[in-house]
């Protein structure tokens, strides 16, 4: 496996970064979680952890070098891996001489190891990910086969192993507690039963929609221009006040960085033609004695059916394995005054739309009334956050660990639509899935969205 090390985008405004110091030398063994390189951003110096495991084979950008975000600055690979194609990496804009070239290795014709992630815009947490080598690379190094294997195989799990007792794992699995977020109190920091039980006692906060980033290219003033004198009249109220965090806000504040930092998110957005769904919904809601169906309900149903068809999305990282769920338990983000919460609607794949409508309304009502039962707040396999009612066209959400993905749903808007060469008004809805790249890949997310889109565009499928 070859892992390219990119200049990470450490803040929304960051465009370039400077390598302050490499914390590993070329030839050093590196494993996931090791501190690799110190990078200076516009705000701070940040030590970057390695994602991939192997040997730091090449430092592309030496200390003091400044490169744009997303530029490759080093290569981690197995000792036997051919990385000669990496040598052609673009030099840093002001890089001093990088380290010595990689150890002589035969050029591999097929070692186009990692074109995928190197190009295109880089989402914040994707800028630093491991890229699997093409299968052609591995068998190309027979000469080095005799070389001693590194102590840690390239298959070492990204982010390190969670030390937990079998019983702790089981209880966590049954209650939806994410072991990665727990501090173990057993021998050597091992997570034991009491740690999981203690974590269960703390209510689980919900996924938070990610704030819309400011335009990346927005100019920042470099000097203070002269301004006319302007005296602000004294104001009675204090300049600021410190508001105590509600327990829920504190939990969200604690939990969200635990998602955003260790979980490499990627996002896929798709637009759905909602005309049919809208019409069907109006039809259904005009029926007497039937529960009122919301757009969210239809999305829940569509997502659930698509999850069963795309189990790779209905999956989460669980220690060393990927746990793939065969049920669609959907977490539904509900906004509250003091924060938000994600009650879980279970078995949505098996429930008819009307049932989903009744239960989701009940869950949301009770969530707002603070009357959810503990088991209704955990165990989701996938979450949906719908900000459509706030006239949001699109947004992206932060994954709620341990889940592997979350769908952010925008408003159904009337828009001019070009169809068969004619312009008409159609109803469109945008949805963005945030996926844990450790568990799934872009194409999987895209296929899943395609299925959701198809289901919503042919909404009778939701009823059969």
């Amino acid at each position, binding site marked *: 496996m070859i892992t390219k090390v990119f200049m990470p985008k450490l803040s929304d405004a960051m465009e370039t970064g400077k390598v302050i110091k490499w914390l590993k030398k070329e030839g050093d063994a590196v494993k996931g979680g090791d501190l690799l390189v110190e990078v200076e951003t516009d705000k701070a110096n940040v030590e970057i952890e390695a994602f991939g495991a192997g040997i730091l084979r090449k430092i592309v950008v030496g200390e003091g070098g400044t490169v744009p975000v997303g530029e490759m600055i080093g290569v981690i690979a197995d000792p036997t891996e051919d990385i000669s194609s990496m040598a052609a990496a673009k030099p840093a804009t002001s890089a001093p001489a990088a380290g010595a070239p990689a150890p002589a290795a035969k050029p591999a014709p097929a070692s186009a190891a990692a074109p995928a992630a190197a190009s295109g815009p880089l989402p914040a947490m994707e800028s630093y990910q491991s890229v699997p080598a093409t299968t052609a690379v591995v068998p190309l190094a027979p000469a080095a086969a005799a070389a001693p294997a590194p102590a840690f195989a390239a298959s070492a799990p990204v982010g390190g192993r969670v030390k937990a*007792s*079998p*019983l*702790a794992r*089981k*209880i966590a699995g*049954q209650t939806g507690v994410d072991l990665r977020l727990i501090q173990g109190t057993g021998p050597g920091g091992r997570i*034991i*039963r009491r740690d999981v039980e203690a974590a269960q006692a703390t209510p689980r906060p919900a996924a938070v929609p990610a704030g819309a980033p400011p335009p990346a290219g927005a100019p920042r003033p470099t000097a203070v221009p002269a301004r006319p004198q302007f005296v602000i009249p004294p104001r009675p109220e204090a300049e600021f006040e410190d508001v105590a965090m509600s327990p829920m806000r504190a939990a969200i504040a604690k939990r969200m960085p635990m998602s955003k930092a260790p979980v490499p998110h990627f996002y896929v957005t798709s637009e759905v033609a909602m005309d049919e769904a809208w019409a069907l919904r109006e039809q259904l809601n005009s029926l007497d004695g039937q529960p009122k169906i919301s757009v969210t309900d239809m999305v829940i149903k569509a997502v659930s059916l698509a999850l069963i068809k795309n189990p790779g999305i209905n999956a989460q990282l669980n220690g060393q394995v990927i746990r793939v769920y065969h049920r669609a338990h959907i977490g539904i983000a509900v906004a509250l005054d003091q924060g938000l919460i994600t009650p879980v609607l279970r078995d949505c794949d098996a429930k008819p739309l009307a049932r989903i409508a009744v239960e989701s309304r009940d869950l949301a009502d009770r969530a707002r009334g603070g009357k959810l039962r503990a088991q209704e707040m955990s165990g989701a396999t996938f979450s949906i956050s719908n900000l459509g009612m706030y006239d949001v066209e699109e947004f992206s959400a932060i994954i709620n660990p341990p889940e592997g993905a979350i769908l952010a749903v925008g408003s159904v808007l009337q828009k001019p639509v070009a169809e068969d060469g004619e312009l008409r008004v159609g109803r469109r809805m945008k949805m963005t899935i945030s996926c844990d790249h450790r568990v799934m890949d872009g194409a999987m997310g895209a296929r899943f969205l395609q299925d959701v889109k198809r289901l919503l565009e042919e909404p009778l499928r939701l009823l059969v």
Partner: protein
Amino acid sequence: MATQPFDVVVVGTGPGGYVAAIRCAQLGLSVATVEDDRPGGVCLNWGCIPTKALLRNAEVVGLFNRAKEFGITVGEWKADYSQAVQRSRRVADRMAKGVEFLFRKNKITLLLGRGTLKSARVVEVAGKDGATTLEAKRAVILATGSEPKSLPGVTIDEKRVVSSTGAVTNEGRPGSLIVIGAGAVGIEFADVYAAYGVAVTVLEALPRVLPIEDEEVSTQIARLFSRRDIAIRTGVKVKSVTPGSEGVSVEVEAEGKIETLKADQVLMAVGRAARTRGLGLEALGVATERGFVTVSATMETSVKGVYSIGDMAGHQLLAHKAMAEGVVAAEAIAGQSPRPVDYGNVPSCTYCHPQVASIGLTEAAARAGGREIAVGKFPFTASGKAVAQGETEGFVKVVADKATGEILGAHIVGPEATELIHEFAVGRTLEATLDEIIHTMHAHPTLSEAAFEATLAALGHPIHI
């Protein structure tokens, strides 16, 4: 006489005290130990070890009785009980010498005499050759153990009415014996004496023998003992014990009726009491509860720098519990942060034939806990190794939490039960579940397979039954 300074002074050298002393020495502390009897305490000298020697003798006698079954013709043979006791003394002496050797090896000072706390830092030792004053610079560890209890109004004279301490060294054996108390001690002595032809009656006030064990274990042992002509009387209240020239009369009340039983001797096995008298605890203000010294998780008493371990500190009165506490105390005194003793995970063993061992909750206790449980049981009659060995009595029983597979308890009656229990002890320490046990390959043929099969049975799919 000058005061001798040590980092730690340990009073009592039973399994708690000597282990604490060795662990302290390993951690670089200078240690003095005080013993008013023989190094090794009750366990090595009068309890665990010599009784295991006697029980082994009883087992060998049992095998001789079964020689025909194995196709062995034995001529005239005789089981001499006095020689069994002599053998057990040699075993005890050897083990006690082992403690003295370990003390020398670890440069631990041993003072013979009775230790009394003069303050939290000063222990006075009244020995045969006068008094010595020891200064404990870091801590004092009290490990003076326990002694046999009797019933109210009954004096243990160690002739007609004996305690386990008296019985273990007595080379003679009565023609008939009434054992009062069917806990581990009572059951073990009943086993030994019955093997040597003594007519044994066991009386128990509670409704079953080995009352702390799982009910099925008690039932099985009562049945097997009855088959060996050991009279088992449970739910029996002893009203009086009267020694006379011909023997002892024991007046009992059973189901509302008063009855008098007679035997040559009575063995009192109704439990043990903390041995704290004369230690100076009251003067120092060391808190006790129902006779046992109150301690923290690091075994420290209410008086700073004074630690207490083993039987005198309560919980299970078992040597292995004392040893574990000794390690905790020593490490805490040396400034480490030891893991506290897990009193819910102490194996309980009775070395009768067949053996009994258990850990964790009984089935009844697990049910009372309100959890949904799964129980698996596997009889040794279905174990190839047990059948080959000709030891097919008993079973392995596993009690688990149904939802998680947590091993709540394990109960074994049968050959080597006291060895087999540790699979479950390790499992519980590691928080293993039934799955980890069944995914551990067990060698065939072994007795351990019964533990494996009982675990499979708890999951609903045993192979061999």
